[in-house]
């Protein structure tokens, strides 16, 4: 156990330090790939071991609790110094200072350090292990991809001296912090790793160092810092009420019976999760984070950072089950799902479409945690897993495409198949696995809608139905554009570094294969995770189909019919000859030689142009962001108000 926890949590930090010190390209590649392999293997071995509790006492004679406290203060002071000197941002400084003061109060005036520990500092159940798998495998693939991506990125910036050692330091350390976060039982440890991810994301977003990236990184920092403040308050509150600062204490049955005394810290922790997951009204930090190099976006969006937020909300779901907090969280998540899906429709910037769709999916996960039935919790976990794989894939595809065509605008991806056929196909697989049955993300959506309907949760159901329609709109549009091409006469070869192609192909294969094996994944990990928090399972497997009172989702019949049908359709498409192909219909007067023009009455060739409907009059950021932020701010205030109302 020591060795596996060491490999997943401590090793990435050591590798990160090595990456900082050994600055040459060769050893960087070796370390990153080596760490990736070890991490993936260790995460699988951890799953093989099964659930565990683990209480590491000391390292080299230093108490670990003390070490974590020390590092915590060190980290906060570093942030404080950065806020005051480099950023000159009083808000960040104040938020950091509040956390320092709060921690000092908690550590030195409230806690009895001599007392025996009530619970082990670390534990893992199926949910933690699923998270470790996602972080260690998807995250590692993204780090490997960065090896191929960053040299081209730096060429573009014309840097005198490479900043890659620093970049990879934070990238790899991020994975260790995330693993620590999901394995922590002690809330003090959880808080420490939580702040490490905030800091890493700040450093990674501001990596390029220009004005925009620093500005956006600062926004990410202060928004997440408000979550950090809430976290510290939750700790103080819990300590005050005499609850031990351990997740296992919060998850004990009957915890929420304490009423507001239990619900207020739970709300504070959920609020921290909401800021970290960039839910409305905090969505702007994640869309702003798009200025960072693509591997950062991919990492933040798929396997780290935002997933830490939904992990915490989901982890606490049993603690607030059946309370008003649960119901309002469902509303809040569904609202985020609907509104950010609408914002995604209004975007032609591919990265922004991905960003809003990430926030939407996170909203869906939070809605499921709020619905809080076994089926809904299953849906949340399914979406976490499949969204991580497909979204990582989509981000890496957009990064690759952008480096080739120098644009991330959807409109510029027309005819992409003629330039980069392999990446286009991989991106299409990404879109299809995000959108259509029988793939995992859609299955999660199906579970979510059916569980909302089962709860007769009308506002939530209506918002999920509307949001679902919006998601189809922006994904279908993108998929169509990726196909948009004249008859491909001689498709070019597409050279690509192995560190780029490898992760792309592996993630695409993963997205499809995981969906294919989802019944086994369910039996092995997801169902145990649901059962650890709820009495019953959400679904039973009947001939590998997901069945419950509400409905049934066929897996293998659909895969078989759709797979065979798709193969047949593909075969038919392959038979097409160049001779059968014509140019588009342009009302008669088509110019010869140029497919994209017609002949005018004056005999000149006149081009035409068609583009997507983005419906910005309805779904544009300018139109929607203000009202969305206002409504979501009110929702949060109402949540807090109702809880406080219980105290006074």
């Amino acid at each position: 156990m020591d060795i596996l926890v060491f490999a997943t949590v401590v090793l990435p930090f050591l590798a990160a330090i090595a990456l900082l010190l050994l600055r040459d390209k060769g050893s960087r590649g070796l370390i990153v790939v080596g760490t990736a392999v070890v991490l993936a293997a260790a995460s699988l071995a951890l799953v093989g071991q099964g659930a565990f509790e683990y209480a590491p006492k000391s390292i080299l004679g230093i108490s670990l609790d003390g070490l974590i406290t020390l590092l915590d203060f060190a980290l906060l002071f570093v942030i404080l110094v950065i806020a005051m000197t480099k950023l000159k941002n009083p808000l960040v400084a104040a938020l950091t200072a509040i956390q320092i003061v709060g921690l000092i109060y908690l550590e030195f005036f409230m806690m009895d350090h001599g007392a025996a520990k009530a619970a082990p500092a670390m534990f893992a159940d199926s949910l933690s292990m699923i998270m470790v798998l996602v972080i260690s495998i998807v995250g590692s693939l993204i780090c490997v991809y960065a090896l191929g991506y960053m040299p081209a990125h730096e060429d573009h910036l014309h840097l005198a001296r490479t900043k890659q050692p620093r970049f990879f330091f934070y990238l790899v350390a991020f994975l260790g912090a995330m693993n620590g976060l999901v394995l922590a039982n002690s809330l003090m440890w959880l808080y420490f790793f939580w702040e490490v991810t905030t800091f890493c994301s700040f450093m990674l977003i501001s990596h390029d160092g220009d004005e925009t990236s620093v500005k956006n990184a600062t926004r990410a920092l202060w928004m997440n810092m408000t979550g950090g403040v809430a976290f510290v308050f939750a700790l103080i509150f819990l300590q005050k009420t005499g609850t031990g600062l351990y997740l296992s204490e919060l998850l004990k049955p009957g915890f929420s019976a304490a009423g507001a005394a239990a619900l207020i810290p739970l709300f504070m922790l959920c609020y921290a999760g909401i800021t970290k997951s960039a839910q409305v009204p905090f969505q702007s930090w994640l869309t702003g984070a798009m200025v960072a190099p693509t591997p950062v976006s991919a990492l933040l969006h798929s396997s780290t950072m935002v997933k830490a937020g939904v992990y915490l909300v989901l982890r606490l779901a049993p603690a607030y089950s059946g309370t008003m907090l649960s119901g309002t969280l469902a509303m809040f998540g569904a609202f985020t799902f609907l509104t950010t899906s609408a914002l995604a429709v209004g975007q032609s910037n591919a990265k922004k479409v991905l960003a809003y769709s990430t926030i939407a999916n996170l909203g869906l996960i939070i809605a499921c945690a709020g619905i809080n039935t076994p089926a809904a919790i299953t849906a949340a976990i399914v979406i976490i897993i499949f969204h991580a794989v497909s979204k990582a894939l989509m981000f890496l595809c957009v990064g690759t495409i952008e480096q080739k065509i120098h644009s991330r605008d959807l409109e510029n991806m027309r005819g992409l198949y003629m330039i980069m056929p392999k990446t286009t196909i991989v991106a299409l697989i990404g879109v299809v696995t995000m959108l259509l049955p029988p793939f995992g993300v859609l299955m999660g959506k199906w579970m979510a809608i059916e569980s909302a309907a089962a709860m007769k949760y009308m506002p939530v159901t209506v918002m999920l139905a509307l949001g679902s329609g919006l998601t189809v709109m922006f994904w279908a549009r993108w998929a169509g554009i990726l196909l948009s091409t004249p008859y491909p006469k001689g498709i070019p070869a597409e050279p690509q570094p192995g560190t780029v192609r490898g992760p792309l192909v592996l993630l695409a294969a993963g997205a499809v294969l995981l969906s294919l094996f989802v019944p086994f994944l369910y039996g092995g990990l997801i169902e145990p995770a649901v059962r650890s928090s709820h009495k019953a399972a959400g679904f039973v497997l009947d001939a590998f189909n997901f069945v419950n009172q509400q409905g049934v989702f066929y897996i293998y019949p659909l895969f078989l019919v759709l797979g065979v049908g798709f193969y047949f359709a593909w075969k038919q498409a392959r038979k097409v000859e160049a001779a059968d192909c014509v140019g588009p219909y342009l009302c008669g007067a088509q110019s010869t030689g140029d497919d994209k023009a017609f002949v005018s009455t004056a005999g000149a060739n006149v081009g035409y142009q068609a583009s997507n409907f983005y419906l910005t009059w309805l779904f544009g950021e300018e139109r929607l962001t203000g009202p969305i932020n206002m409504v979501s701010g009110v929702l949060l205030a109402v949540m807090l108000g109702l809880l406080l109302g219980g105290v006074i």
Partner: protein
Amino acid sequence: MGKLLLATLAVFLAPIVGGLIAGIDRKITARLQSRFGPPILQPFYDVFKLLGKAPMMMNPWQILTVWVYLLSSMLTVFLFFMGSDLLLIFFVMTIGAVFFVMGALSTQSPYAQVGAQRELITMLTYEPLIILVFVSIAMVTGSFKVSEVFAYGKPLLYQLPLMFIVLGYALTIKLRKSPFDISACHHAHQELVRGVLTEYSGPQLAIIEIAHWYDVVFILGLVGLFWATSAPGMIILLVVTYFAELVIDNVTARMTWKWMLQSVWCWGLALSVLNLLWLYAG
């Protein structure tokens, strides 16, 4: 086993029924417009003629997408007659709808592009409504399964009258009838030529037509669910509903997509919420 047989039979019969409905539709529409109209079997003649034509297309993707569209429509009907999960069936139908749009978008043709965008808007309009119809059915019967509707024992129409109107909206849109025929009008005389269908010809167009017949059978199946207790009741409901669609088609003009999105969402949502509230209170 019986279900499997019924579903297989339905997959074979659906295009015949769908084609006949299309023929009767054209005949009645002609009569409403004081024309004589084509023979009832005309849609079949059309499709067979199209199937015999030499294939012409802009790129191979179009072939791929039309076949996937047909496949998903067939699977939709199959699952429906298997008594399967309504929401799942709907998502399977979405595969076809998405691939159909992808095929049109793949062509780089201005008419098809605009048509595809409009088709996306129509999907955006009817998808939430159909999901809400399913949710309301699930609230009444306690399950999303079609088989449970048949086992329920009372016509759904009693409890879901407003949802039936909402489904009517979706039906009108899906049948591409006025005032919602914005993406591919039946009458190829508008500014869009035939919109999303512009770049499909010959066998591909025939396949799309057949897939559309499957869709019509599925949507009418949904209508039938509202009177699942007796066969005559179901047939009367279907005939009345379809005739109402024809009348609406003939007395309305095509409206803009903006109007469609706004009015259908507003009315559809208002009616759905009212009906759901009523169920919830009841």
